[in-house]
């Protein structure tokens, strides 16, 4: 079974600075997807960035980028030029590409990292 581990329960960053959130995962599969989701107090999960495991190039979305180390099973999120609106819970998630017995794409989440942004 796949697992996702986020070892930082809380992180803090100064506005306009850069912060990196860590995520490691365990899987025996060779191809899969990895995601970072943001969950503000409204509780709605918002997709921040996604990575396909077979793509070696790290994904980027504006101020958000990842450092994907497949051999190390590591998938960290870097937020540059942090803004007050970035404060939220951040979840790392894994999704298999293989269809097991009818399941199609459920996400496996880590426990999350609470990010605070100081003005």
């Amino acid at each position, binding site marked *: 079974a796949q697992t*996702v581990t986020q070892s930082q329960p809380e992180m803090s960053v100064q506005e306009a600075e850069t912060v990196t959130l860590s995520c490691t995962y365990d899987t025996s599969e060779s191809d899969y*997807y990895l*995601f970072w989701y943001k969950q503000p107090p*409204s*509780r*709605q*999960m*918002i*997709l921040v960035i*996604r990575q396909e495991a077979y793509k070696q190039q790290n994904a980027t979305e504006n101020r958000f980028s990842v450092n994907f180390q497949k051999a190390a099973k590591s998938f960290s999120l870097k937020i540059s030029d942090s803004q007050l609106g970035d404060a939220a819970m951040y*979840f790392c*998630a894994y*999704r298999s590409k293989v*269809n097991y*017995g*009818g*399941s*199609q*794409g*459920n*996400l*496996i*989440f*880590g*426990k*999350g990292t609470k990010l605070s942004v100081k003005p």
Partner: protein
Amino acid sequence: GAGVSQSPRYKVAKRGQDVALRCDPISGHVSLFWYQQALGQGPEFLTYFQNEAQLDKSGLPSDRFFAERPEGSVSTLKIQRTQQEDSAVYLCASSRGPQNTEAFFGQGTRLTVV
């Protein structure tokens, strides 16, 4: 609607009461997922629908949990004889189809069992 809609947003139930949580996915979305998020934890998968077919219910924690999507659009998650450990946020997500990686989430229902 423009997004995934869940109702109610908050529900307080007395222990032993039955509850029904509703999810209205994005129109045309084939895939629908339910997740349970306990306080301070990440969401955990409960069940998956492809149209009206419930293809995976491996995450349902007990036979008190039941989900349906009879016409392939709106889904209801029912919890019978609620217990305190059922207190959590219940999130619904939909996507266009099994091959689509982007899942759109609703704002969830926070269930408190007293």
